[in-house]
């Protein structure tokens, strides 16, 4: 564990140089401990792949105090990877109609479309980070066989619900936005709804599995093509 100053009222804790499920579990555990220990001195926190940004109230405490509390309370961090987070199943209508890059990705991977769909559903993905846009959850890790680099030229408009792959990460676009990931399907479930409580079906540390649904099921769940 290494602590660096980030700004006038923030510190960043690095847990490792590389992302892994174990490191992610440490980040989660640390965030939950610090929330209790620093309580009202915390303004906000940003958990990510292998780091935790801690933003504190510099008028109620100071960098030195926060650093020593972090060191003291995170000294003996122990995690049980299997125990963290809930499992959320997201339905996906995989097809060339709903995933513009599906056929191309399969071709480049020397697989059939059906194989790509099968492989994408096989694993439980961990929510490593949420950012980029409200509710955008970075999920990993995608099987190397279907990992694909970002598009050379990003699309100006990726639809809401688009299920996509970039390298060994996958995600569901929470809202229509520009984007350079490879689109393989559409998920009818809203990933971010400001009017709902909770506003997101997942949080960092949860696991996601995808389940293929038919066109008819997609439409009956409120999906739009």
């Amino acid at each position, binding site marked *: 564990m290494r602590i660096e*100053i980030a700004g006038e009222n923030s510190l960043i804790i690095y847990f490792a140089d590389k992302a892994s499920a174990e490191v992610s579990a440490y980040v989660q555990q640390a965030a939950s401990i610090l929330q209790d220990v620093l309580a009202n001195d915390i303004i906000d926190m940003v958990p990510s792949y292998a780091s935790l940004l801690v*933003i504190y109230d510099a008028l109620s405490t100071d960098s030195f105090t926060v650093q020593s509390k972090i060191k003291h309370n995170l000294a003996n961090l122990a995690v049980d990877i299997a125990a963290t987070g809930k499992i959320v199943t997201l339905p996906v209508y995989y097809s060339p109609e709903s995933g513009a890059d599906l056929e191309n990705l399969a071709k480049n991977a020397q697989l059939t479309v059906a194989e790509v769909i099968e492989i994408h559903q096989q694993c439980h993905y961990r929510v490593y980070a949420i950012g980029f846009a409200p509710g955008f959850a970075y999920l990993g890790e995608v099987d190397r066989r279907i990992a694909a680099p970002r598009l050379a030229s990003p699309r100006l408009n990726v639809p809401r619900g688009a299920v996509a792959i970039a390298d060994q990460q996958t995600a569901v676009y929470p*809202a229509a936005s520009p984007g350079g990931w490879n689109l393989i399907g559409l998920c009818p479930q809203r990933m971010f709804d400001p009017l709902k409580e909770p506003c997101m079906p997942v949080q960092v540390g949860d696991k996601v599995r995808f389940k293929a649904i038919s066109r008819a099921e997609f439409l009956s769940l409120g999906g739009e093509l």
Partner: protein
Amino acid sequence: MSASSFNKATMYPANPGFKVTKSGLLSLVQDLGRYGCHNIGLTTGGPLDPYAFKWANRLLANELNASAIEISIGGLALEALVDTRICITGAEIEFTINGINQPQWQSLAVTAGDNINFGFVSSGVRSYLAVRDGFDIEPTFGSTSTVVREGLGGVNGTKLLDGQFLPCANFEGNDSHLKLATIPEYKTDICLRVILGYQHHAFTALQKRRFFSSVYRVSEHCDRMGYRLTGPEIKPAVDGILSEGICLGAIQVPANGQPIVLMNDRQTIGGYPKLGSVLSADLAKLAQCAQGATIRFEQISIEDAHNILHLDKVAFAAMNSVKIEAICLQPQ
């Protein structure tokens, strides 16, 4: 048009407050920002110049977090539909009530039917318009701050649009006035104090010396997300990093070596190396700079930064006690 297709914001509300007759270039409802929501990817928002924003509220005896309007560049026009008091602070801007020029940094009475027209800024970039007791806007995720990219805050998550209503209560009360000596001057040649941090080890001593001894300019790409600067290239020893949390004022250095200072509407996580962060008090000065302004950087320690924050807080509070009641506005 059916009744259900009416936009909620354009229906005539019970306490109509003000009507936006001309929205201007970029006018946004803001409070002091949205906190505690980084874990779902929401940024902070809030006024780019919190000092001017807070003064607009203080001169009306409001809570400092009361919802007000950040006017970038200008062009806004409102019609008052209530009797209340308003106060305009921040960037120097010509504005009139019913065609008569009015002063900034003081509370002014408006009456239902008055037309408030803003010209364009003559010094600085962001002006603030506060109203007594704040605009009555429903908070989203604990804040009324508008972040256009996220579609959150303000009236329906957008910048102000022609025809929208900005509800607020009726009010009649006393005047107050800030001493002219304390009105900030908005400069186009500024020094930003920087606390080294994040990947600063990845920048050699030579790179750091170049950064702290060079003059940068504000490029045309400067907005509420970030200010891109142009000047001597600085190159870190690493290209990219594992995406991590970005704090306010972080100085990000992409592959082209041109620094970007990240502002209130920044993305919450990103993967470019960062040299450190600009002191918040100086971000307010940067936000008042337009394209072409010249920027220098000066290194300070975290202890210096904390001292400055405490002193600023005391100075802001102390200004209250020297107030204002001693000043009597006389026609000249």
